[in-house]
């Protein structure tokens, strides 16, 4: 009777320890997988990052879609931030690499401070001109809500260049940056 009891207890203890071990082993396997999964999300490429949703109006019936999804995302993010004005470092980083080399950040920051701010209501795109394999010219009008709530328009002949698989804005403002370009 006592022997049976001891046997039963031993079996229970054995099963309990086996259960604990299996949980530990399972955790040891799952934990690194979870960590590596999180690390993958921590280094999300830009195309997967949340993108500002802007309302586009295509003025030409020939335009059906953007030439490149990455261009659309970078473009949306850039213009959204330009009209918010912040964070200026992030906006500066989307300017073409040669522009970043030729213009110091404080001057650019001052330029952004004087740029109109407001909510973008829509962007009217005339057409996409593939100037070269790496360059698009986009004539467009940005319709935005000014500080007093009035609707304002700004026409821009925008340029976007691809360098090392990344789209960059080519800022052309002959009054603010006459020596660039």
């Amino acid at each position, binding site marked *: 009777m006592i022997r049976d009891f001891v046997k039963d207890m031993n079996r229970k203890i054995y099963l309990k320890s086996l259960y604990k071990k299996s949980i530990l082993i399972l955790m040891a396997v799952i934990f690194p997988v979870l960590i590596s999964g999180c690390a993958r999300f921590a280094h999300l490429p830009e195309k997967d990052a949340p993108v500002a949703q802007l309302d586009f109006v295509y003025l030409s019936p020939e335009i059906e879609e953007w030439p490149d999804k990455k261009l659309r995302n970078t473009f949306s993010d850039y213009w959204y931030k330009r009209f918010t004005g912040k964070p200026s470092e992030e906006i500066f980083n989307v300017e073409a690499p040669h522009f970043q080399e030729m213009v110091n950040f404080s001057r650019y920051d001052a330029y952004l401070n004087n740029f109109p701010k407001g909510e973008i209501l829509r962007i009217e795109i005339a057409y996409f001109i*593939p100037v*070269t394999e790496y360059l698009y010219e986009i004539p467009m009008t940005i319709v935005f809500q000014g500080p007093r709530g009035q609707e304002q328009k700004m026409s821009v*002949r925008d*340029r976007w260049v691809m360098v090392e698989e990344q789209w960059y804005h080519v800022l*052309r403002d002959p009054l603010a940056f006459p020596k660039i370009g």
Partner: protein
Amino acid sequence: MNNFKVFFFIFLFFGLFSVQTGFAENEDRVVARGKDFVMTQDFVRAIENYYAKQGHYTRWEFLVDASLRVKLFANEELSIISAQLPDDMEYGPDYASRMVKLSEDYIFRLISAHPVDDRTVLSYYRSYPEKFLENGQSPRTPFQVTRIDEPLDPDKIAPLSDELAGLIRLRIGANNRREIVNEELERLKEKYGVEIVK
């Protein structure tokens, strides 16, 4: 008679005083000095005359700064090309123009050596293809944003050769001239411990 003596000594005193002051003014006053470096007022005047002939006038403080830059940069250029100007060369127009030319050569050397990476060069080349059309017609005019309404023929765009990349590097460096020059001026001032003499 006594009055005459008094007036005589007073005139004598003021006469000697003004003569002494005159000599002092004619002395070539030191404007800036450092280790193995001296810049005199005559040098600054020579630079002033050089720029005045070109229609540039400025305040004395700016003139001293400009002269300091010319002298320090010209000295560096002379040491690089292993040359020296004659010791007895007067601070005339030839001397000033020679020094300015040497300092400009040194600035060109700095700009040429200014590192501009390949990515930056590529960015410039791809952003303004109209500048590199082989028929040489760039539609850009000052204070006007270029419009391109049609795709450009890639065969008509000059390829990005080493020579073209060099020119783009110079173009970008020249744009950063002010920063490059100021940085180097500060470096040389520190190197020679140059101080402006008040």
